[in-house]
């Protein structure tokens, strides 16, 4: 008998049971994929580093003499526990070509090496360790190279000092050290024979070879201080924590996806609870009849628990299997560059599915408490016992100026605040996520963060690797290369002032605390051109400004004198100001332009910056940028926005994630609108029939049902738009501060996107979903008033 009642119930309330099953599937799917993603992402970087065999410190060295010095240092350093190295040679973007053109303009030096010389484990796109590269093939790491659009099978050529080698692109590799968006040093992996073939050229072997060192050490601070003595030998160096920082954007994207997953899970559970509570409250008649027949509360409760247990188990099993591709989809934006796995995904997935079943039974247990309250009289009185605790109707049709449909829409929403409040909350969360991502993408795609790069705005930024390399190698001075660029510009009819920001690695000491600080210096700008958070710009040659991070690491503050060793000469420099910067993840300082270090080769340079003499407008600048791309044979010619975007490296990825989240949000919103509207129709069947009997046309009923969702969404969109900037600030500022921005960030948003495009798209999808579902009300006829239960 018990199971016959159940069977009948499942058959008769097919629609509501299917809706419930869908929500269970969604909950299980979101829960299993979200928890797996949480585990993957939170452990992600450590897992990736662990699998890759990352060490504590890395540096790149060029030339025999420098290599010798670094070897000696590492052999003698008391803090080094173990170190290894890779034989490499360095290339720049003009050495790697596709169809005779540069493959991609990477701003740093590229590292070319044989696969069997790899010290780190590098992974294929399938997360397998790359152990072998076939002859004639090349594998590449570095997220920025992906922008070239290169695909496996494409033909590339390496052209160096007269040697030209044709290679086939084998695929991208996941590289824990150099693979992130913020790294500008791609790695090219070749077969041993191909590698040696290129090295047959004596010039390459003599001037471009070097080593990459991987060092494990004991004391972090003492080791870093001791590296000051080899700082002049290094092309670049990183600590493990700095590499982690360069992956921060990947982690940030993963974290955004995590928030989304948790949001989706919360949405799903909320709707689930509502649906269970709603289905039980609608069953007053059955419950009343069962009580009238003498069934005890426990038996009735058991009946519902068995029913929901059946639905929950079915949904959880389907949801678990659906979570596997869904989780992969969520992580796809991150897993391109990282090995994001966890060894217990099946266990976590299963536990989550069991968790969903238990959660549903818990919901059901709490919702079925109501059964005690329902009496046999409910079966007779259609659930109306005359007991009332609060007034349902909140508006008066007689006093309202709204039309009947508009009035009923608003009145229905206000009369069921919990129900529609929940839908509003869900819509607000999903819309806000899209808006936050849009604002972040827009901010990263503007020049509002330019000041955080610690550069002065200019008309254009020009990347010329050859000239930059010359300054770093000491072949030419910065002043000389600046004049060269000015001459090229004048010859092409666009004269202007040219300057170049340079980086110097300078050992610093304060009260016995040492640090190897990256200092920015530019002879052609004034330190007052930059922004400072505290104090003032250094205006004398013995004055400096530091980031808060560096000042904290040295333990100094404004007014203190810090010892700097420049060109083997140690002097005291007064700290006059503090600033914030993304440069070197906030670990940098600025020297006064009056300090004469022009003859010292910098460790690194930014792009050549140009201010045209004729003060051209944006249109002319855009035309000149196109011309400059041909003149300098590079795609890396930027305006302020482009330069910021290039430095941040993740604007495009954030935009991709935003689009993915938008699509996902639209699917979720559509699904919720469809399922909720369908349950409303079931719940309101008698009212719909009554409206039709009274003479309401089908279109009025459809309008009412569609409008309710439209109004609720409009409210959600207004709330989301109003909270957009504060929410973006709350969500994004921790990430930006980790990258070096300790103060307020001025967020940019596109009013068209935030106030029109996204709301309109979300509104269109919601309204369409609700409208199409509400067409089902056409099947309810006026005559159904005679056979409503």
């Amino acid at each position, binding site marked *: 008998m018990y199971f016959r009642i159940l069977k009948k119930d499942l058959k008769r309330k097919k629609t509501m049971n299917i809706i419930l099953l869908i929500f269970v599937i969604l909950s299980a799917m979101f829960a299993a994929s979200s928890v797996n993603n949480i585990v993957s992402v939170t452990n992600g970087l450590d897992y990736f580093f662990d699998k890759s065999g990352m060490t504590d410190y890395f540096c790149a060295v060029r030339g025999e003499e420098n290599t010798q010095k670094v070897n000696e240092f590492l052999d003698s350093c008391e803090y080094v526990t173990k170190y290894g190295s890779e034989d490499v040679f360095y290339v720049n973007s003009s050495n790697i070509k596709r169809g005779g053109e540069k493959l991609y303009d990477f701003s740093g030096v590229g590292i070319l090496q044989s696969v069997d010389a790899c010290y780190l484990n590098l992974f294929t796109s399938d997360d397998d360790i790359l152990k072998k590269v076939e002859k004639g093939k090349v594998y590449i790491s570095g997220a920025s190279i992906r922008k070239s659009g290169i695909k496996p099978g494409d033909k590339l050529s390496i052209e160096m000092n007269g040697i030209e080698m044709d290679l086939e692109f084998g695929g991208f590799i996941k590289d824990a050290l150099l693979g992130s968006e913020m790294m500008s040093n791609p790695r090219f992996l070749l077969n041993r024979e191909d590698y040696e073939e290129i090295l047959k050229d004596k010039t390459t072997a003599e001037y471009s070879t070097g080593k990459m060192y991987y060092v494990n050490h004991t004391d972090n601070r003492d080791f870093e201080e001791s590296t000051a003595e080899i700082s002049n030998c290094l092309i670049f160096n990183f600590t493990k924590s700095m590499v982690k920082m360069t992956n921060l954007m990947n982690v940030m994207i993963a974290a955004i996806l995590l928030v989304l997953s948790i949001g989706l899970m919360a949405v799903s559970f909320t709707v689930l609870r509502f649906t269970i509570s709603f289905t039980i409250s609608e069953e007053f008649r059955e419950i009343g009849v069962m009580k009238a027949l003498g069934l005890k509360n426990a038996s009735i409760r058991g009946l519902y628990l068995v029913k929901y247990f059946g639905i929950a188990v079915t949904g959880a099993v389907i949801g678990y299997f659906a979570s596997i591709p869904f989780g992969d989809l969520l992580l796809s934006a991150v897993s391109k560059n990282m090995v994001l796995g966890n060894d217990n995904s099946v266990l976590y997935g299963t536990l989550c599915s069991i968790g969903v079943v238990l959660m549903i039974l818990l919901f059901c247990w709490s919702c079925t408490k109501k059964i005690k309250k329902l009496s046999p009289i409910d079966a007779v009185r259609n659930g109306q016992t005359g007991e009332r605790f609060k007034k349902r109707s909140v508006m*008066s049709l007689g006093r309202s100026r709204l039309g009947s449909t508009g009035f*009923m829409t608003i009145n229905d929403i206000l009369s069921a605040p919990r129900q529609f409040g929940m839908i509003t909350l869900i819509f607000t969360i999903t819309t806000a996520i899209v808006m936050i991502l849009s604002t972040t993408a827009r901010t990263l795609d503007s020049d509002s963060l330019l000041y955080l790069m610690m550069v002065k705005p200019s008309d254009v930024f020009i990347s010329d690797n050859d000239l930059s390399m010359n300054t770093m190698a000491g072949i030419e001075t910065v002043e000389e290369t600046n004049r060269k660029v000015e001459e090229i510009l004048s010859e092409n009819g666009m004269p202007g002032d040219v300057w170049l920001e340079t980086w110097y690695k300078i050992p610093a000491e304060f009260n016995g605390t040492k640090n190897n600080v990256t200092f920015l210096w530019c002879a052609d700008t004034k330190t007052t051109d930059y922004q400072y958070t505290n104090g003032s710009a250094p205006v004398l040659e013995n004055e400096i400004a530091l980031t808060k991070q560096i000042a904290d690491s040295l333990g100094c503050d404004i007014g203190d004198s810090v010892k700097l060793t420049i060109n083997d000469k140690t002097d005291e420099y007064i700290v006059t100001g503090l600033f914030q910067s993304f440069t070197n993840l906030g670990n940098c300082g600025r020297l006064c332009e009056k300090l004469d270090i022009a003859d010292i080769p910098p460790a690194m340079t930014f792009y050549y910056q140009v201010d045209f003499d004729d003060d051209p407008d944006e249109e002319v600048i855009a035309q000149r940028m196109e011309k400059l791309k041909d003149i300098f044979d590079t795609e890396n010619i930027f305006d302020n926005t482009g330069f910021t975007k290039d430095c941040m490296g993740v604007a495009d990825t954030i935009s991709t994630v935003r689009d993915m989240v938008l699509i996902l949000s639209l699917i979720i919103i559509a699904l919720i609108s469809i399922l909720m509207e369908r349950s409303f129709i079931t719940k309101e069947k008698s009212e719909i029939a009554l409206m039709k009997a*009274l*003479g309401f046309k089908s*279109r*009025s009923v459809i309008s009412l049902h569609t409008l309710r969702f439209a109004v609720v969404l409009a409210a959600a969109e207004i709330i989301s738009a109003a909270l957009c900037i504060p929410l973006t600030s709350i969500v994004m500022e921790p990430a930006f501060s980790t990258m070096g921005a300790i103060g307020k960030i001025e967020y940019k948003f596109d009013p068209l996107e935030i106030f029109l495009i996204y709301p309109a798209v979300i509104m269109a999808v919601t309204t369409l979903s609700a409208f199409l579902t509400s067409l089902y009300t056409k099947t309810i006829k006026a005559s159904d*008033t005679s056979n409503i239960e």
Partner: protein
Amino acid sequence: MKTILDVNELCKTYIVNKRQNNVLRNVSFKIEEGEMVAVMGPSGSGKSTLLYTVSGMDRMTAGKVEFCGKDISALKENELAELRLDDMGFIFQQMYMMKNLSVLDNIILPAIKSSKSKESRSKTTSRGRELMHKLGIAEIADNDINEVSGGQLQRACICRSMINHPQMIFADEPTGALNRTSSDEVMEELTKLNNDGTTIMLVTHDAKVAARCTRVLFIVDGVIKGEYDVDRESSERDRERALNNWLLEMGW
């Protein structure tokens, strides 16, 4: 007298599990303006189906129904909806009302919905209150629908059915869910309405209710077996006795 409802050879067939169920078979009758006609018959005889079909709430299978001269079988769904809104009133056995509206708002809703109505919102509201006053339920105007008794609610349903000055009121067992006192009160109101000129067609099981009408149609297995004209001049008890005798003759 003007014919309000003219039913000719009306058939209604349902297909249930591939089996044809002829609920109404060639039913023909007329209702003149000012009449109050009761439809009686055993359960499952097709009384409610007849009411819903002739009022245009359900589609007929064959035959012709003219309401105020309009062939309702030829009308589209939207035209039927307009007809129900402006020219018909409905009272159901269960006192269906919109649960999010107050009693008064439920009553005036059809008037506000009607495109024919040109009166102001306040005029409609005061007319709704007048109707409620007339039926003795003025005090529940601002109450929610489940704050009032069944009898009060059914009288509110009568008010709602009257708000658009309909040509005819259709009532499906209007007293079926009420106790005797409430039932008498509701029938008293319907009789008053009829005396004021409103045409009414109602379905009932109750001979006492039917005895208040002017005519009774007796339907069995979808066929009208007989018609009985009630002598309204006689006393209520005599009318009831005479009707019961007739019903016995018909096999009730």
